[in-house]
């Protein structure tokens, strides 16, 4: 099992790869990629039962990155896990690449669901949870959702369905970085009281610091005992985490750093 020190080093590597690949592509979403690094690292290196050598293994746990614009973070972690070479990350968003701007399950090893049009991933995760339950497999489904994404109506259709059908093999980590494309979530379309909303839809809810591995671990362990409800972990995070000039700045929702900014960002991540 990977130690916390190892997880921290993996997070650092993933952040550097995110910056490098978005910089090389000249476009992408650094802010919401950097905010989900610890969640993805923890899931792929501690929690998920997956096999990088056999990405389509039937008996694997599933992960849906519903906030598809966080693709660079997913690609970085999948590459670090060994699903494909790290060198391939530089092909992001380029002609012929397996790494599309948003995740494409038909192209990228390890990607379990296509995403990008917001609000759809939870429904797909529900379907996976239903399917695994029908097959009587004790496998789990994880989904990572965005906060802005929760403004989509389909999210609440899916929330209602998962609660009603008691999909307890489903765990969602909600990346609550509190910024969306145009600005603060609270000023675009406030989600509060967010935890109460999910509780009202019959979900088991935990709130954590999404950058603290110990808290991610504690929440996931808590959920393992919850069998009568689906699991919601609201992860309080910082958009652009790890790069001072990106942190908390909605301008970095969907913009690539230039050469100078890339150098600065990599230096900060290495030093952090």
């Amino acid at each position, binding site marked *: 099992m990977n130690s916390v020190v190892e997880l921290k080093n993996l997070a650092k590597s993933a952040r550097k790869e995110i910056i490098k690949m978005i910089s090389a592509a000249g476009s992408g979403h650094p802010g919401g990629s950097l905010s989900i690094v610890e969640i993805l690292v923890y899931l792929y290196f501690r929690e998920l039962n997956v096999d990088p050598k056999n990405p389509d293994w*039937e008996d694997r746990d*599933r992960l*849906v990155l519903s906030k598809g614009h966080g693709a660079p973070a997913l690609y970085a972690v999948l590459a670090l896990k060994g699903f494909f070479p790290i060198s391939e990350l530089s092909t992001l968003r380029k002609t012929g690449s397996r790494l599309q701007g948003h995740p*494409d*399950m*038909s192209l990228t090893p390890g990607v*379990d*669901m*296509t*995403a*990008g*049009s917001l*609000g*759809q*991933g*939870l*429904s*797909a*995760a*529900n*379907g*996976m*949870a*239903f*399917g*695994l339950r*029908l*097959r009587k497999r004790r496998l789990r489904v994880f989904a990572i959702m965005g906060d802005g994404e929760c403004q989509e*109506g*389909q999210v609440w*259709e*899916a929330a*209602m*369905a998962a609660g*009603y*059908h008691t999909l307890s093999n489903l765990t969602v980590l909600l990346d609550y970085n509190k910024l969306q494309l145009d600005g603060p979530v609270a000023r675009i379309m406030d989600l509060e009281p967010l935890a109460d909303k999910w509780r009202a839809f019959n979900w088991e809810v935990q709130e954590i610091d999404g950058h603290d591995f110990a808290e991610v671990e504690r929440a996931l362990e808590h959920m393992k005992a919850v069998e009568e409800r689906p699991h919601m972990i609201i992860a309080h995070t910082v958009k652009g985490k790890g790069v001072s000039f990106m942190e908390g700045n909605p301008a970095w929702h969907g913009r690539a750093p230039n050469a100078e900014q890339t150098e600065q960002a990599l230096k900060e991540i290495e030093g952090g």
Partner: protein
Amino acid sequence: MGEVHTDIRESFIETLIDVARNDGRIVVLDSDVSTSTKTHAFAQVFPDRFIELGVAEQSMVGTAAGLATIGFTPFVCCYAVFASCRAYDQVRMSVAQTRLNVKIVGTHGGISVGMDGPTHHAIEDISLMRTLPHFRVISPADEAETRAATAHVAEIDGPCYLRLLRVKVPRIFDEAYEFIPGRGVLLSPGSDITLVATGIMLSRAMGAREILENEGYSIRLINIHTIKPIDIDIILEAAATTKGIVTCEDHSICGGLGSAVAEILARRHPTRVSNVGLKDCFAESATCDALFQKYGLNSEAIAAAARELLH
């Protein structure tokens, strides 16, 4: 009228139940319309393989995509207008782009739905589904064709849209009917004008053929059940053999069968074409027959379109 009329929704679900007895992958998803779509019959036989999502078509389509990733063959059944228009982005990203093995069944195609009015008339579903890469679009005309199309859709891998009807339709094909996916059916090899019809309009085109033949015309009649991928050869052969083509569909003339046929002809064999269908407008509440008369979808309207092409 000695014709036998049947409900093709029932032909669909009876066939699906039969197929599902030997195919454990098949599951049915519902959005609180199972008594309307007839899938409640499936739920009675396979309660564990019937998933109720409530009035939430977007969630239903997404859930189907997730089930397909686990190896199931989900049938999403609801009114055609909601299966297409309401959940279009979900169908597009979670089903078409992924090429997952999801079957979308729109049970209330066209204005033949009738009295419920334009909110419930699917007049764009063929157009919308046909535009999606990787989608197959099938619109059966009667009971036998529906049974064959249902078995076919259940068997093949990949996204399909099956368009059914709420109104009963006359029996056209007998038990020996051979459904060949992607191939049109030549019902009569006339030489003056071609009528190309799909779904409920096949029976109306047959009525038009009778009218026109009584006037001395030689009518070529083609049934198109698979609108995508469409049978290019049968269309080109008709263009080469007759003086013009009338397309007939219970759907908008924008983007549906008429457009599919016109696209082929424009590229390969420019031919005079007339489109019978809803003329880029919404219809209203009334019976199917009243609407077909008012909006020009009955046999007389098809015959008139044919005469106009000839003169």
